[in-house]
């Protein structure tokens, strides 16, 4: 056979193989109107469909897996602790390995590139205002046993590391690095319909992560590369879709960048959190959180706080006003100093009933700072284990603003061009609540207060594209117009060279979950 004939033959075989492939001719989806035309939109998961079409899973298994969404989702034990979107995604690996439904297996990796210039932190003396960048990477593995219960077990491991940030002056600490560690490891008991009352109760024992309310005071860190965890008990009682009460007693987990994390009996954290969804316009949270932290030898740093708070809110809906009010009051002691601090938050938003459903949101936060450092009273609010990214600004190596000693009004515009896209513009203005107190965790302070409290303002642009629940991209840019506070001689002396100039931050990240 000539060379040409051989090519023809190969082409023919390949065409025949394509033609004879066992593609399944049944598609499932919905009919939707797009630009005045009716279009069939396939709603099948392409990976599961591929597994079925190539015979890797049976039709029966394909339909079983496809149905495991919404109310049929197999709930892992940490569903009562953490946001559903953090733990619910299609388990491709588990399906490919033909594991039964009572086993959960999931792998996640997030890799980010981020960069910023003109560092301002007192600890970053070296750097000379040059652009600094790093590549943080976070990987998680979760293994659960027990399916929907009543007895369940969950292990979640996390590996957090960062590349290209080893130079002097780079940002590298326990918020970035925590190699090969146990993030969650607990057993749980779940009882539905307790004593035929329709109530559900859960009891957990072990190490767990935790989100409470809107995550301002206790959060499973999302954007940060490492994650807070707690060792202890948690009990929940709930009337599904109506109300729930959580109570917990824990020792906080101390992260170690290379060795295994350990709990510390000198850092106790306990509390109770009640949430009610009985009235759509008045969703209500009420909470008490206790902290007794005596880890360090310096007695003046010991924290014994009781935090009481409440939250009232309405979820955003097209064509409706929404709002959120949160108030938290903190009493106790910081060392031998009396502690009394508070935090007030207000959001008012409106979602327009227009294409891209634009939502305009106005924020205002007042967070108390220490009125007179060195006296017998401390008024600096402690944000405990809270998250900041979702309403202040991106954290990770950036994140200058902490929920302490701040007055900050701002606005945000959120657009959703399609269900998988979110575009966001944010602008906030920043002032110190007390000029003599420290600025966030920067280490900067002017004890005279002569530097004023104008920290400037920032613009943030962010775009998120969730291809599906298993793959998403996130990119953002921030320009921080620094205020007059940074130009004062007392503050200039504490910062790296160029720290008073405006800073730019950029990041791009990808997350894969299988």
């Amino acid at each position, binding site marked *: 056979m*000539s060379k040409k004939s051989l090519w023809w033959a190969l082409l023919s075989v390949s065409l025949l193989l394509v*033609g004879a492939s066992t593609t399944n*001719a049944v598609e499932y989806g919905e009919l939707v109107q797009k630009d005045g035309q009716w279009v*069939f939109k396939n709603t099948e998961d392409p990976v599961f469909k591929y597994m079925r079409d190539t015979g890797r899973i049976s039709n029966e298994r394909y339909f079983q897996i496809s149905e495991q969404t919404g109310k049929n989702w197999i709930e892992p034990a940490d569903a009562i602790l953490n946001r559903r979107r953090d733990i619910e995604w299609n388990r491709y690996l588990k399906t490919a390995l033909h594991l039964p439904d009572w086993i959960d297996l999931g792998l996640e990796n997030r890799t980010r590139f981020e960069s910023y210039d003109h560092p301002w932190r007192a600890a970053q003396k070296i750097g000379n205002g040059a652009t600094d960048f790093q590549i943080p990477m976070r990987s998680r593995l979760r293994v659960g046993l027990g399916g929907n219960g009543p007895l369940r077990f969950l292990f979640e491991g996390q590996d957090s590391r960062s590349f290209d940030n080893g130079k002097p002056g780079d940002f590298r600490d326990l918020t970035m690095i925590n190699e090969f560690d146990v993030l969650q490891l607990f057993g749980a008991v779940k009882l539905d319909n307790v004593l035929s009352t329709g109530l*559900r109760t859960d009891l957990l024992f072990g190490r767990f992560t935790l989100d409470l309310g809107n995550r301002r005071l206790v959060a499973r860190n999302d954007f940060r590369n490492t994650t807070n965890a707690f060792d202890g008990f948690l009990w929940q009682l709930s009337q599904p879709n109506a109300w729930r009460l959580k109570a917990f007693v824990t020792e906080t987990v101390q992260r170690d960048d290379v060795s295994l994390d350990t709990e510390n009996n000198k850092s106790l954290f306990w509390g109770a959190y009640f949430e009610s969804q009985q009235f759509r316009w008045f969703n209500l949270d009420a909470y008490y959180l206790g902290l007794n932290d005596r880890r360090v030898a310096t007695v003046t740093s010991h924290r014994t706080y009781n935090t009481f708070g409440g939250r009232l809110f309405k979820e955003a809906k097209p064509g409706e006003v929404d709002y959120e009010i949160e108030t938290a009051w903190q009493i106790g002691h910081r060392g031998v100093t009396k502690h009394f601090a508070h935090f007030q938050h207000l959001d008012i938003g409106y979602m327009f009933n227009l294409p891209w459903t634009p939502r305009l949101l106005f924020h205002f936060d007042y967070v108390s700072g220490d009125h007179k450092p060195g006296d017998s009273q401390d008024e600096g609010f402690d944000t405990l284990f809270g998250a900041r990214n979702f309403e202040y600004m991106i954290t990770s190596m950036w994140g200058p603003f902490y929920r302490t000693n701040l007055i900050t009004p701002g606005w945000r515009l959120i657009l959703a061009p399609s269900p998988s896209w979110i575009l966001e513009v944010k602008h906030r203005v920043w002032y110190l609540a007390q000029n003599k107190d420290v600025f966030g965790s920067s280490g900067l302070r002017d004890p005279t207060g002569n530097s004023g409290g104008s920290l400037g303002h920032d613009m943030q642009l962010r775009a998120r594209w969730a291809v599906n629940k298993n793959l998403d991209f996130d990119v953002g840019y921030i320009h921080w117009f620094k205020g007059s506070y940074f130009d004062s001689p007392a503050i200039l002396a504490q910062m790296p060279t160029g720290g008073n100039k405006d800073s730019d931050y950029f990041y791009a990240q990808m997350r894969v979950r299988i």
Partner: protein
Amino acid sequence: MKQRFLAWYVCVIASAAVTPAFAEQVLVAVAANFVPPFREIAIEFETATGHNLRVAAGSSGNFYSQIKNGAPFDVFFSADMERPKLLEDEGLGVKGSRLTYAIGRLVLWSPNADLVKGEETLRSKNFKRLAIANPKTAPYGLAAMQTMQKLDLWEGLQPQIVMGENIGQTMGFIESGNVQLGFVALSQVLDPKIKGQGSRWDVPTNLHEPIKQDVILLTKGKDNPAAKALMEFMGGPQAKAIIEHYGYELK
């Protein structure tokens, strides 16, 4: 030699190209309660005929309004008889093509293995809440109401009745434990996820009007050979066996 090879090649490619030409595509709207058996029927149909199926699953009411608004479905499997009849009267369905493909069976079901012991369970009122689908919009809810009326229990049970928008939500009330028992479709109880669990009473069919589910060939599909083939397939033994396996009765 070269010519023979080329001829062979052309024949092979032509046959590969021609084969899909016989396969037509049919766009089907299927009521949510009938989706589990229809999945099996779709595989059998596709294997037997080579035609392609595009399946949309949802509520019959939603499909009815979509079809009225010009949605290009070829075939509509409704959860009731009324909507296919309306479509036929309105000229959107092919006259004479309507067919009762399944008759639903009503059951009283509880996840509690000791609770349901026949109609005496209803008479004892030894439960806090009883779930039914809304009789005004859901055929299974209407059948549940008729059953209780026939047993002279409808008025007496009013304080304990909780209504779901549809039969899916009604099942959700019971599965979540918020309601101890309720009237649902036998096909739901035979779902592999809960088959064999709890206790049930298969309501005798003489206690309510038949829950007939009709399929209709829509005018959009009247010239589509695949749509016609699907209508024929539904009357055949393979489809009937699957439908019965899922707890439906046949005419």
